[in-house]
Protein backbone atom coordinates (compact mmCIF):
# COMPACT_ATOMS: atom_id res chain seq x y z
CA UNK A 1 0.00 0.00 0.00
CA UNK A 2 2.84 2.40 0.85
CA UNK A 3 4.14 2.12 -2.71
CA UNK A 4 1.39 4.56 -3.71
CA UNK A 5 3.35 7.28 -1.91
CA UNK A 6 5.87 7.20 -4.74
CA UNK A 7 3.32 9.09 -6.84
CA UNK A 8 3.91 12.09 -4.57
CA UNK A 9 7.48 12.36 -5.90
CA UNK A 10 6.26 13.19 -9.41
CA UNK A 11 5.41 16.90 -8.84
CA UNK A 12 8.89 17.38 -7.35
CA UNK A 13 10.54 15.73 -10.36
CA UNK A 14 8.38 17.67 -12.80
CA UNK A 15 8.91 21.11 -11.23
CA UNK A 16 12.29 21.21 -9.51
CA UNK A 17 14.35 20.73 -12.68
CA UNK A 18 13.54 23.95 -14.59
CA UNK A 19 15.46 23.02 -17.80
CA UNK A 20 12.51 20.68 -18.44
CA UNK A 21 10.20 23.60 -19.03
CA UNK A 22 12.06 26.90 -19.43
CA UNK A 23 11.08 27.36 -23.07
CA UNK A 24 8.70 29.58 -25.01
CA UNK A 25 7.10 27.02 -27.26
CA UNK A 26 4.77 25.29 -27.68
CA UNK A 27 2.39 28.09 -26.71
CA UNK A 28 -1.15 27.45 -25.51
CA UNK A 29 -3.82 30.18 -25.67
CA UNK A 30 -1.01 32.74 -25.88
CA UNK A 31 0.74 31.31 -22.77
CA UNK A 32 4.43 30.41 -23.23
CA UNK A 33 5.20 26.77 -22.37
CA UNK A 34 6.96 27.85 -19.13
CA UNK A 35 3.69 29.22 -17.78
CA UNK A 36 1.06 26.74 -18.91
CA UNK A 37 3.25 23.76 -18.03
CA UNK A 38 3.42 24.89 -14.41
CA UNK A 39 -0.28 25.69 -14.30
CA UNK A 40 -0.97 22.20 -15.68
CA UNK A 41 0.86 20.70 -12.71
CA UNK A 42 -1.71 22.15 -10.30
CA UNK A 43 -4.54 19.76 -11.24
CA UNK A 44 -2.09 16.91 -11.94
CA UNK A 45 -0.48 17.18 -8.48
CA UNK A 46 -3.90 17.49 -6.89
CA UNK A 47 -5.16 14.34 -8.64
CA UNK A 48 -2.01 12.40 -7.78
CA UNK A 49 -2.38 13.34 -4.11
CA UNK A 50 -6.05 12.38 -4.23
CA UNK A 51 -5.19 8.97 -5.71
CA UNK A 52 -2.68 8.38 -2.89
CA UNK A 53 -5.31 9.52 -0.38
CA UNK A 54 -7.86 7.02 -1.73
CA UNK A 55 -5.42 4.14 -2.00
CA UNK A 56 -4.00 4.55 1.49
CA UNK A 57 -7.25 5.35 3.28
CA UNK A 58 -8.03 2.80 5.97
CA UNK A 59 -11.45 1.14 5.93
CA UNK A 60 -14.19 3.10 7.70
CA UNK A 61 -14.58 2.30 11.38
CA UNK A 62 -17.43 2.96 13.74
CA UNK A 63 -17.34 5.26 16.76
CA UNK A 64 -17.47 2.23 19.08
CA UNK A 65 -14.08 1.06 17.89
CA UNK A 66 -12.66 4.52 18.36
CA UNK A 67 -13.85 4.65 21.94
CA UNK A 68 -12.17 1.31 22.61
CA UNK A 69 -8.91 2.75 21.36
CA UNK A 70 -9.10 5.32 24.12
CA UNK A 71 -7.64 8.19 22.13
CA UNK A 72 -7.02 11.61 23.66
CA UNK A 73 -10.35 12.98 24.77
CA UNK A 74 -10.75 16.67 24.22
CA UNK A 75 -12.09 18.84 26.95
CA UNK A 76 -15.49 20.02 25.89
CA UNK A 77 -16.47 22.61 28.44
CA UNK A 78 -19.63 24.29 27.23
CA UNK A 79 -20.46 21.84 24.45
CA UNK A 80 -23.88 22.52 23.00
CA UNK A 81 -25.98 19.53 22.07
Amino acid at each position, binding site marked *: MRRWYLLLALPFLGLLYPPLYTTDSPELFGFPFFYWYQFAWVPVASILTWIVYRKT*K*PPERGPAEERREGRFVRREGGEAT
Partner: protein
Amino acid sequence: MSFPVDGVALAVFCALFALVTGLGFVAARWKRGDLNLIDEWGLGGRRFGTIVTWFLLGGDLYTAYTFIAVPALVFGAGAMGFFALPYTIIVYPFVFLVMPRLWSVASRHGYVTSADFVRGRFGNRELSTAIAFTGILATMPYIALQLVGIQVVVQAMGVHGDWPIIVAFAILAAYTYNSGLRAPALIALVKDTLIYATVLVAVIYIPGKVGGWGNIFDSAAKVLPTRDTPGALIPEGPAQVAYATLALGSALALFLYPHAITSVLSARSQQVVRRNMTILPAYSFLLGLIALLGYVAIAAKVDVTDPNFAVPQLFIDFFPSWFTGFAFAAIAIGALVPAAVMSIAAANLFTRNLWKEYVHPDCSDHEEAQVAKIVSLVVKVGALAFVLFLPNEYAIDLQLLGGVWMLQTLPSVVIGLYTRWFHHWGLAIGWLVGMVLGTLMAESQDFKSVYPLDIFGTTITAYAALFALVANLAIAAAITLALGRRSRGPDETRADEYDELAETGEPAPTVSAGVA
Protein backbone atom coordinates in the same frame (compact mmCIF):
# COMPACT_ATOMS: atom_id res chain seq x y z
CA MET B 1 1.91 58.56 -4.30
CA SER B 2 -1.43 60.31 -4.17
CA PHE B 3 -4.76 58.86 -5.22
CA PRO B 4 -8.10 60.68 -5.54
CA VAL B 5 -10.79 59.80 -2.99
CA ASP B 6 -13.29 57.31 -4.42
CA GLY B 7 -16.53 57.57 -2.42
CA VAL B 8 -18.37 54.63 -3.98
CA ALA B 9 -15.41 52.29 -3.58
CA LEU B 10 -15.00 53.43 0.03
CA ALA B 11 -18.67 52.81 0.82
CA VAL B 12 -18.57 49.24 -0.57
CA PHE B 13 -15.29 48.67 1.24
CA CYS B 14 -16.64 49.85 4.59
CA ALA B 15 -19.86 47.84 4.24
CA LEU B 16 -17.95 44.60 3.65
CA PHE B 17 -15.54 45.44 6.47
CA ALA B 18 -18.48 45.97 8.82
CA LEU B 19 -19.95 42.62 7.75
CA VAL B 20 -16.83 40.67 8.70
CA THR B 21 -16.48 42.60 11.95
CA GLY B 22 -19.94 41.36 12.92
CA LEU B 23 -18.99 37.83 11.91
CA GLY B 24 -15.83 38.05 14.00
CA PHE B 25 -17.83 38.62 17.16
CA VAL B 26 -20.64 36.19 16.33
CA ALA B 27 -17.99 33.50 15.77
CA ALA B 28 -17.62 33.11 19.55
CA ARG B 29 -20.93 31.23 19.52
CA TRP B 30 -20.11 29.04 16.52
CA LYS B 31 -19.35 25.36 17.33
CA ARG B 32 -19.69 26.53 20.89
CA GLY B 33 -17.00 25.66 23.39
CA ASP B 34 -15.51 27.04 26.60
CA LEU B 35 -13.32 29.89 25.36
CA ASN B 36 -11.54 29.95 28.71
CA LEU B 37 -9.56 26.90 27.56
CA ILE B 38 -6.60 27.31 25.23
CA ASP B 39 -7.70 24.27 23.20
CA GLU B 40 -10.98 26.05 22.47
CA TRP B 41 -9.76 29.65 22.10
CA GLY B 42 -6.51 28.85 20.32
CA LEU B 43 -7.47 25.77 18.27
CA GLY B 44 -11.23 26.08 17.86
CA GLY B 45 -11.66 22.92 19.94
CA ARG B 46 -9.88 20.85 17.25
CA ARG B 47 -13.09 20.15 15.45
CA PHE B 48 -13.05 21.94 12.11
CA GLY B 49 -14.16 19.71 9.23
CA THR B 50 -12.87 19.50 5.68
CA ILE B 51 -14.58 22.61 4.30
CA VAL B 52 -13.84 24.96 7.20
CA THR B 53 -10.22 23.77 7.33
CA TRP B 54 -9.92 24.38 3.59
CA PHE B 55 -11.13 27.96 3.94
CA LEU B 56 -9.07 28.55 7.07
CA LEU B 57 -5.80 27.17 5.69
CA GLY B 58 -6.38 28.86 2.33
CA GLY B 59 -7.29 32.13 4.01
CA ASP B 60 -4.33 31.80 6.34
CA LEU B 61 -1.54 30.83 3.92
CA TYR B 62 -2.46 33.04 0.99
CA THR B 63 -2.22 36.39 2.73
CA ALA B 64 -3.05 39.91 1.60
CA TYR B 65 0.64 40.61 1.40
CA THR B 66 1.00 37.64 -0.97
CA PHE B 67 -1.69 39.10 -3.20
CA ILE B 68 0.13 42.44 -3.32
CA ALA B 69 3.76 41.30 -3.31
CA VAL B 70 3.70 38.35 -5.74
CA PRO B 71 2.25 40.30 -8.71
CA ALA B 72 4.49 43.25 -7.70
CA LEU B 73 7.52 40.97 -7.99
CA VAL B 74 6.32 39.60 -11.34
CA PHE B 75 5.63 43.17 -12.49
CA GLY B 76 9.14 44.25 -11.55
CA ALA B 77 11.33 41.18 -12.07
CA GLY B 78 9.36 38.81 -14.29
CA ALA B 79 9.65 35.03 -14.11
CA MET B 80 11.57 34.89 -10.82
CA GLY B 81 8.45 36.01 -9.01
CA PHE B 82 6.58 33.10 -10.51
CA PHE B 83 8.40 30.59 -8.28
CA ALA B 84 5.38 31.04 -6.01
CA LEU B 85 3.48 28.62 -8.27
CA PRO B 86 5.81 25.57 -8.19
CA TYR B 87 6.34 26.35 -4.48
CA THR B 88 2.65 26.12 -3.68
CA ILE B 89 2.24 23.00 -5.83
CA ILE B 90 4.96 20.85 -4.24
CA VAL B 91 4.15 21.96 -0.71
CA TYR B 92 0.97 19.84 -0.56
CA PRO B 93 2.36 16.37 -1.39
CA PHE B 94 5.03 17.06 1.25
CA VAL B 95 2.56 18.20 3.88
CA PHE B 96 0.25 15.30 2.99
CA LEU B 97 2.98 12.98 4.28
CA VAL B 98 4.20 14.92 7.28
CA MET B 99 1.42 16.89 8.97
CA PRO B 100 -1.05 14.06 9.61
CA ARG B 101 1.65 12.53 11.81
CA LEU B 102 1.94 15.77 13.77
CA TRP B 103 -1.85 16.02 14.07
CA SER B 104 -1.99 12.46 15.34
CA VAL B 105 0.61 12.80 18.08
CA ALA B 106 -0.60 16.31 18.99
CA SER B 107 -4.20 15.21 19.49
CA ARG B 108 -3.12 12.35 21.75
CA HIS B 109 -0.95 14.52 23.99
CA GLY B 110 -2.91 17.78 23.77
CA TYR B 111 -0.05 19.61 22.03
CA VAL B 112 -1.08 23.08 20.88
CA THR B 113 2.18 24.15 19.18
CA SER B 114 5.08 22.52 17.33
CA ALA B 115 7.32 23.46 20.26
CA ASP B 116 4.99 21.44 22.54
CA PHE B 117 5.69 18.44 20.34
CA VAL B 118 9.46 19.00 20.36
CA ARG B 119 9.33 19.34 24.17
CA GLY B 120 7.53 16.02 24.50
CA ARG B 121 9.58 14.23 21.87
CA PHE B 122 13.06 15.26 22.96
CA GLY B 123 12.38 16.04 26.62
CA ASN B 124 14.51 19.18 26.50
CA ARG B 125 13.22 22.65 27.15
CA GLU B 126 16.12 24.60 25.64
CA LEU B 127 15.36 23.03 22.27
CA SER B 128 11.61 23.64 22.52
CA THR B 129 12.31 27.23 23.57
CA ALA B 130 14.42 27.68 20.44
CA ILE B 131 11.53 26.41 18.29
CA ALA B 132 9.02 28.71 20.02
CA PHE B 133 11.38 31.69 19.77
CA THR B 134 11.86 31.11 16.03
CA GLY B 135 8.12 30.94 15.48
CA ILE B 136 7.39 34.18 17.34
CA LEU B 137 10.33 35.96 15.68
CA ALA B 138 9.21 34.99 12.17
CA THR B 139 5.55 35.74 12.84
CA MET B 140 5.84 39.30 14.13
CA PRO B 141 7.05 40.97 10.91
CA TYR B 142 4.60 38.81 8.95
CA ILE B 143 1.71 40.32 10.94
CA ALA B 144 3.18 43.77 10.31
CA LEU B 145 3.15 43.07 6.59
CA GLN B 146 -0.56 42.29 6.69
CA LEU B 147 -1.01 45.86 7.91
CA VAL B 148 1.04 47.09 4.98
CA GLY B 149 -1.41 45.20 2.72
CA ILE B 150 -4.35 47.09 4.25
CA GLN B 151 -2.44 50.37 4.03
CA VAL B 152 -1.81 49.91 0.30
CA VAL B 153 -5.47 49.45 -0.63
CA VAL B 154 -6.74 52.16 1.72
CA GLN B 155 -4.25 54.63 0.26
CA ALA B 156 -5.26 53.58 -3.24
CA MET B 157 -8.80 54.69 -2.37
CA GLY B 158 -7.48 58.12 -1.48
CA VAL B 159 -7.51 57.81 2.32
CA HIS B 160 -4.22 58.80 3.90
CA GLY B 161 -2.75 58.80 7.36
CA ASP B 162 -2.26 56.00 9.86
CA TRP B 163 -5.71 56.01 11.46
CA PRO B 164 -7.35 53.46 9.09
CA ILE B 165 -4.92 50.70 10.04
CA ILE B 166 -5.15 51.60 13.72
CA VAL B 167 -8.94 51.27 13.56
CA ALA B 168 -8.75 48.06 11.53
CA PHE B 169 -6.32 46.50 13.98
CA ALA B 170 -8.27 47.59 17.03
CA ILE B 171 -11.33 45.84 15.62
CA LEU B 172 -9.27 42.78 14.70
CA ALA B 173 -7.71 42.65 18.16
CA ALA B 174 -11.12 42.88 19.85
CA TYR B 175 -12.77 39.98 18.06
CA THR B 176 -9.66 37.81 18.14
CA TYR B 177 -9.53 38.30 21.91
CA ASN B 178 -13.22 37.55 22.14
CA SER B 179 -13.64 34.62 19.73
CA GLY B 180 -10.17 33.11 19.24
CA LEU B 181 -9.53 30.95 16.19
CA ARG B 182 -13.25 30.72 15.41
CA ALA B 183 -13.20 34.36 14.21
CA PRO B 184 -10.68 33.97 11.37
CA ALA B 185 -12.20 30.58 10.49
CA LEU B 186 -15.61 32.15 9.93
CA ILE B 187 -14.26 35.28 8.25
CA ALA B 188 -12.14 33.14 5.95
CA LEU B 189 -15.34 31.93 4.27
CA VAL B 190 -16.17 35.51 3.27
CA LYS B 191 -12.60 36.46 2.47
CA ASP B 192 -11.98 33.60 0.09
CA THR B 193 -15.30 34.04 -1.68
CA LEU B 194 -14.44 37.71 -2.32
CA ILE B 195 -10.90 36.86 -3.45
CA TYR B 196 -12.01 34.12 -5.85
CA ALA B 197 -14.65 36.43 -7.34
CA THR B 198 -12.21 39.33 -7.72
CA VAL B 199 -9.45 37.30 -9.32
CA LEU B 200 -11.73 35.43 -11.71
CA VAL B 201 -13.31 38.68 -12.88
CA ALA B 202 -9.88 40.29 -13.20
CA VAL B 203 -8.31 37.51 -15.28
CA ILE B 204 -11.34 37.05 -17.52
CA TYR B 205 -12.27 40.70 -18.04
CA ILE B 206 -9.04 42.74 -18.10
CA PRO B 207 -6.90 40.64 -20.52
CA GLY B 208 -9.50 41.09 -23.27
CA LYS B 209 -9.22 44.87 -22.83
CA VAL B 210 -5.45 44.85 -23.34
CA GLY B 211 -5.23 42.59 -26.40
CA GLY B 212 -5.39 39.07 -24.92
CA TRP B 213 -2.83 36.85 -23.20
CA GLY B 214 -0.59 36.60 -26.27
CA ASN B 215 -0.17 40.36 -26.27
CA ILE B 216 0.28 40.47 -22.50
CA PHE B 217 3.23 38.06 -22.59
CA ASP B 218 4.69 39.87 -25.63
CA SER B 219 4.63 43.26 -23.88
CA ALA B 220 6.12 41.73 -20.72
CA ALA B 221 8.92 40.17 -22.80
CA LYS B 222 9.68 43.62 -24.25
CA VAL B 223 9.44 45.65 -21.05
CA LEU B 224 11.11 43.34 -18.48
CA PRO B 225 14.67 43.52 -19.93
CA THR B 226 14.51 47.34 -19.74
CA ARG B 227 13.97 47.40 -15.94
CA ASP B 228 16.75 48.83 -13.74
CA THR B 229 17.50 45.26 -12.71
CA PRO B 230 16.70 43.48 -15.98
CA GLY B 231 14.02 40.83 -15.66
CA ALA B 232 13.06 38.05 -18.04
CA LEU B 233 9.93 36.21 -19.10
CA ILE B 234 11.64 32.84 -18.67
CA PRO B 235 14.49 32.18 -16.19
CA GLU B 236 17.79 31.29 -17.83
CA GLY B 237 21.08 29.78 -16.71
CA PRO B 238 21.92 30.27 -13.02
CA ALA B 239 18.53 31.87 -12.40
CA GLN B 240 17.02 28.40 -12.83
CA VAL B 241 18.87 27.08 -9.78
CA ALA B 242 17.62 30.03 -7.77
CA TYR B 243 14.09 29.44 -9.08
CA ALA B 244 14.03 25.75 -8.12
CA THR B 245 15.69 26.20 -4.72
CA LEU B 246 13.38 29.07 -3.80
CA ALA B 247 10.42 26.83 -4.64
CA LEU B 248 11.79 23.87 -2.66
CA GLY B 249 13.01 25.82 0.37
CA SER B 250 9.81 27.85 0.65
CA ALA B 251 7.68 24.72 0.34
CA LEU B 252 9.59 22.96 3.12
CA ALA B 253 9.33 26.03 5.36
CA LEU B 254 5.67 26.99 4.84
CA PHE B 255 4.01 24.51 7.18
CA LEU B 256 6.59 25.08 9.90
CA TYR B 257 5.15 28.58 10.41
CA PRO B 258 3.11 28.75 13.62
CA HIS B 259 -0.01 30.00 11.84
CA ALA B 260 0.04 27.02 9.46
CA ILE B 261 0.49 24.55 12.33
CA THR B 262 -2.34 26.19 14.29
CA SER B 263 -4.70 25.72 11.35
CA VAL B 264 -3.59 22.10 10.82
CA LEU B 265 -4.06 21.20 14.49
CA SER B 266 -7.54 22.76 14.53
CA ALA B 267 -8.73 20.13 12.04
CA ARG B 268 -10.88 17.42 13.52
CA SER B 269 -8.88 14.44 12.18
CA GLN B 270 -5.78 13.60 10.24
CA GLN B 271 -8.04 12.54 7.38
CA VAL B 272 -9.35 16.12 7.24
CA VAL B 273 -5.74 17.27 6.92
CA ARG B 274 -5.01 14.68 4.21
CA ARG B 275 -8.15 15.52 2.25
CA ASN B 276 -7.25 19.20 2.40
CA MET B 277 -3.89 18.61 0.76
CA THR B 278 -5.78 17.34 -2.31
CA ILE B 279 -8.08 20.40 -2.52
CA LEU B 280 -5.83 23.26 -1.35
CA PRO B 281 -4.10 23.42 -4.78
CA ALA B 282 -7.19 25.34 -5.94
CA TYR B 283 -5.61 28.29 -4.12
CA SER B 284 -2.31 27.70 -5.89
CA PHE B 285 -4.05 28.03 -9.24
CA LEU B 286 -5.55 31.28 -7.99
CA LEU B 287 -2.14 32.48 -6.83
CA GLY B 288 -0.67 31.72 -10.27
CA LEU B 289 -3.39 33.84 -11.87
CA ILE B 290 -2.76 36.65 -9.38
CA ALA B 291 0.95 36.52 -10.19
CA LEU B 292 0.12 36.97 -13.87
CA LEU B 293 -1.77 40.17 -13.02
CA GLY B 294 1.75 41.63 -12.77
CA TYR B 295 2.14 41.07 -16.53
CA VAL B 296 -1.38 42.31 -17.20
CA ALA B 297 -0.38 45.53 -15.44
CA ILE B 298 2.67 45.79 -17.72
CA ALA B 299 0.54 45.31 -20.84
CA ALA B 300 -2.00 47.83 -19.53
CA LYS B 301 0.89 50.33 -19.16
CA VAL B 302 0.09 50.87 -15.50
CA ASP B 303 2.32 53.66 -14.29
CA VAL B 304 3.42 53.34 -10.65
CA THR B 305 6.59 54.26 -8.80
CA ASP B 306 6.10 51.54 -6.17
CA PRO B 307 5.44 48.09 -7.74
CA ASN B 308 3.21 47.25 -4.74
CA PHE B 309 0.63 49.57 -6.26
CA ALA B 310 0.68 47.83 -9.67
CA VAL B 311 -2.36 45.62 -9.06
CA PRO B 312 -4.40 48.17 -7.06
CA GLN B 313 -3.79 50.71 -9.85
CA LEU B 314 -4.80 48.10 -12.44
CA PHE B 315 -8.11 47.57 -10.64
CA ILE B 316 -8.72 51.32 -10.41
CA ASP B 317 -8.02 51.73 -14.14
CA PHE B 318 -10.29 48.93 -15.34
CA PHE B 319 -13.01 48.28 -12.75
CA PRO B 320 -16.06 50.43 -11.99
CA SER B 321 -15.81 52.08 -8.56
CA TRP B 322 -18.10 49.66 -6.75
CA PHE B 323 -16.11 46.64 -7.92
CA THR B 324 -12.83 48.34 -7.02
CA GLY B 325 -14.22 48.71 -3.49
CA PHE B 326 -15.21 45.04 -3.56
CA ALA B 327 -11.74 43.98 -4.73
CA PHE B 328 -9.95 46.15 -2.19
CA ALA B 329 -12.18 44.83 0.58
CA ALA B 330 -11.17 41.33 -0.54
CA ILE B 331 -7.51 42.23 -0.07
CA ALA B 332 -8.00 44.03 3.26
CA ILE B 333 -10.14 41.23 4.69
CA GLY B 334 -7.50 38.92 3.28
CA ALA B 335 -5.11 40.62 5.69
CA LEU B 336 -7.34 40.12 8.72
CA VAL B 337 -7.58 36.33 8.55
CA PRO B 338 -3.84 35.59 8.56
CA ALA B 339 -3.16 38.43 11.02
CA ALA B 340 -5.65 36.89 13.44
CA VAL B 341 -4.34 33.35 13.06
CA MET B 342 -0.73 34.52 13.32
CA SER B 343 -1.36 36.45 16.50
CA ILE B 344 -3.20 33.46 17.99
CA ALA B 345 -0.35 31.14 16.99
CA ALA B 346 2.27 33.46 18.49
CA ALA B 347 0.16 33.75 21.65
CA ASN B 348 -0.11 29.95 21.89
CA LEU B 349 3.66 29.63 21.57
CA PHE B 350 4.33 32.27 24.20
CA THR B 351 1.85 30.82 26.65
CA ARG B 352 2.67 27.16 26.29
CA ASN B 353 6.40 27.26 25.69
CA LEU B 354 7.61 30.38 27.52
CA TRP B 355 5.05 31.37 30.18
CA LYS B 356 4.14 27.87 31.30
CA GLU B 357 7.70 26.62 30.89
CA TYR B 358 9.53 29.35 32.77
CA VAL B 359 7.18 31.73 34.59
CA HIS B 360 4.25 29.83 36.01
CA PRO B 361 4.57 26.06 35.40
CA ASP B 362 1.45 25.09 37.34
CA CYS B 363 -0.89 27.73 35.97
CA SER B 364 -4.52 26.74 35.69
CA ASP B 365 -6.25 26.06 32.37
CA HIS B 366 -8.11 29.35 32.67
CA GLU B 367 -4.95 31.32 33.37
CA GLU B 368 -3.35 29.67 30.35
CA ALA B 369 -6.16 30.84 28.06
CA GLN B 370 -6.19 34.29 29.64
CA VAL B 371 -2.45 34.77 29.10
CA ALA B 372 -2.83 33.67 25.48
CA LYS B 373 -5.64 36.18 24.89
CA ILE B 374 -3.63 39.05 26.34
CA VAL B 375 -0.50 38.08 24.43
CA SER B 376 -2.52 38.06 21.19
CA LEU B 377 -3.25 41.74 21.90
CA VAL B 378 0.36 42.55 22.73
CA VAL B 379 1.56 40.89 19.54
CA LYS B 380 -0.80 43.03 17.46
CA VAL B 381 0.20 46.25 19.19
CA GLY B 382 3.82 45.31 18.52
CA ALA B 383 3.11 44.72 14.83
CA LEU B 384 1.25 48.03 14.64
CA ALA B 385 4.14 49.92 16.26
CA PHE B 386 6.45 48.22 13.79
CA VAL B 387 4.52 49.61 10.83
CA LEU B 388 3.90 53.05 12.32
CA PHE B 389 7.41 53.77 13.56
CA LEU B 390 9.77 51.82 11.31
CA PRO B 391 10.19 51.91 7.53
CA ASN B 392 8.12 49.22 5.76
CA GLU B 393 11.37 47.94 4.29
CA TYR B 394 12.27 46.45 7.69
CA ALA B 395 9.11 44.37 7.82
CA ILE B 396 9.69 43.17 4.26
CA ASP B 397 13.33 42.24 4.96
CA LEU B 398 12.41 40.48 8.19
CA GLN B 399 9.60 38.56 6.51
CA LEU B 400 12.09 37.32 3.92
CA LEU B 401 14.35 36.24 6.78
CA GLY B 402 11.32 34.55 8.38
CA GLY B 403 11.37 31.81 5.75
CA VAL B 404 15.10 31.29 6.31
CA TRP B 405 14.54 31.05 10.08
CA MET B 406 11.51 28.75 9.98
CA LEU B 407 13.33 26.25 7.78
CA GLN B 408 15.93 25.83 10.54
CA THR B 409 13.28 24.18 12.73
CA LEU B 410 12.72 21.42 10.16
CA PRO B 411 15.22 18.96 11.66
CA SER B 412 13.54 19.14 15.10
CA VAL B 413 9.92 19.25 13.97
CA VAL B 414 9.69 17.29 10.70
CA ILE B 415 12.56 14.84 11.10
CA GLY B 416 11.56 14.54 14.76
CA LEU B 417 8.21 13.15 13.60
CA TYR B 418 10.03 10.20 12.03
CA THR B 419 13.08 9.56 14.20
CA ARG B 420 14.78 10.45 17.47
CA TRP B 421 18.17 9.69 15.98
CA PHE B 422 19.36 13.30 16.39
CA HIS B 423 20.55 14.32 19.87
CA HIS B 424 18.67 17.35 21.24
CA TRP B 425 21.93 19.26 21.68
CA GLY B 426 22.84 18.50 18.09
CA LEU B 427 19.47 19.88 16.96
CA ALA B 428 19.80 22.97 19.18
CA ILE B 429 23.31 23.89 18.06
CA GLY B 430 22.52 23.02 14.43
CA TRP B 431 19.53 25.36 14.70
CA LEU B 432 21.73 28.16 16.08
CA VAL B 433 24.29 27.73 13.30
CA GLY B 434 21.55 27.68 10.65
CA MET B 435 19.90 30.81 12.06
CA VAL B 436 23.13 32.81 12.21
CA LEU B 437 24.45 31.61 8.86
CA GLY B 438 21.14 32.16 7.05
CA THR B 439 20.75 35.65 8.52
CA LEU B 440 24.32 36.64 7.59
CA MET B 441 23.90 35.30 4.04
CA ALA B 442 20.67 37.23 3.48
CA GLU B 443 22.08 40.35 5.10
CA SER B 444 25.24 40.25 2.94
CA GLN B 445 23.02 40.23 -0.17
CA ASP B 446 21.08 43.27 0.99
CA PHE B 447 18.16 41.05 2.02
CA LYS B 448 17.82 39.14 -1.21
CA SER B 449 16.89 35.54 -0.50
CA VAL B 450 19.39 33.99 -2.91
CA TYR B 451 23.07 33.72 -2.09
CA PRO B 452 25.99 33.06 -4.47
CA LEU B 453 28.03 30.37 -2.71
CA ASP B 454 31.47 29.38 -3.99
CA ILE B 455 31.95 25.63 -3.79
CA PHE B 456 35.22 24.23 -5.18
CA GLY B 457 35.59 27.04 -7.68
CA THR B 458 32.03 27.05 -9.01
CA THR B 459 29.46 29.57 -7.84
CA ILE B 460 26.02 28.22 -7.02
CA THR B 461 23.36 30.87 -6.56
CA ALA B 462 20.55 29.36 -4.51
CA TYR B 463 18.08 30.06 -1.70
CA ALA B 464 20.10 30.96 1.43
CA ALA B 465 17.67 29.02 3.64
CA LEU B 466 18.70 25.74 1.99
CA PHE B 467 22.43 26.43 2.42
CA ALA B 468 21.76 27.21 6.08
CA LEU B 469 19.70 24.02 6.44
CA VAL B 470 22.54 21.90 5.05
CA ALA B 471 24.94 23.43 7.60
CA ASN B 472 22.31 22.95 10.32
CA LEU B 473 21.91 19.25 9.50
CA ALA B 474 25.66 18.65 9.21
CA ILE B 475 26.32 20.18 12.65
CA ALA B 476 23.37 18.33 14.18
CA ALA B 477 24.63 15.01 12.79
CA ALA B 478 28.22 15.62 13.93
CA ILE B 479 27.17 16.47 17.49
CA THR B 480 24.77 13.52 17.59
CA LEU B 481 27.59 11.15 16.61
CA ALA B 482 29.93 12.72 19.17
CA LEU B 483 27.46 12.54 22.09
CA GLY B 484 25.98 9.14 21.27
CA ARG B 485 23.54 7.96 23.96
CA ARG B 486 24.77 10.42 26.60
CA SER B 487 22.31 12.71 28.44
CA ARG B 488 19.33 11.98 26.20
CA GLY B 489 16.03 13.48 27.31
CA PRO B 490 12.97 11.24 27.80
CA ASP B 491 10.48 10.69 24.95
CA GLU B 492 6.88 10.86 26.16
CA THR B 493 5.46 9.77 22.78
CA ARG B 494 5.04 6.22 21.49
CA ALA B 495 5.60 4.91 17.95
CA ASP B 496 1.93 3.98 17.52
CA GLU B 497 0.83 7.56 18.21
CA TYR B 498 2.23 8.72 14.88
CA ASP B 499 -0.21 6.75 12.75
CA GLU B 500 -0.97 9.18 9.94
CA LEU B 501 -3.54 6.84 8.41
CA ALA B 502 -5.88 5.92 11.22
CA GLU B 503 -9.36 7.37 10.95
CA THR B 504 -9.34 8.07 14.67
CA GLY B 505 -10.37 11.66 14.71
CA GLU B 506 -13.84 11.59 13.17
CA PRO B 507 -16.25 13.17 15.59
CA ALA B 508 -18.74 11.38 17.72
CA PRO B 509 -22.30 12.48 16.77
CA THR B 510 -22.64 14.87 19.72
CA VAL B 511 -19.56 16.81 18.61
CA SER B 512 -20.65 17.30 15.00
CA ALA B 513 -23.98 18.59 16.30
CA GLY B 514 -22.12 21.26 18.21
CA VAL B 515 -23.07 24.12 15.91
CA ALA B 516 -25.03 26.52 18.05
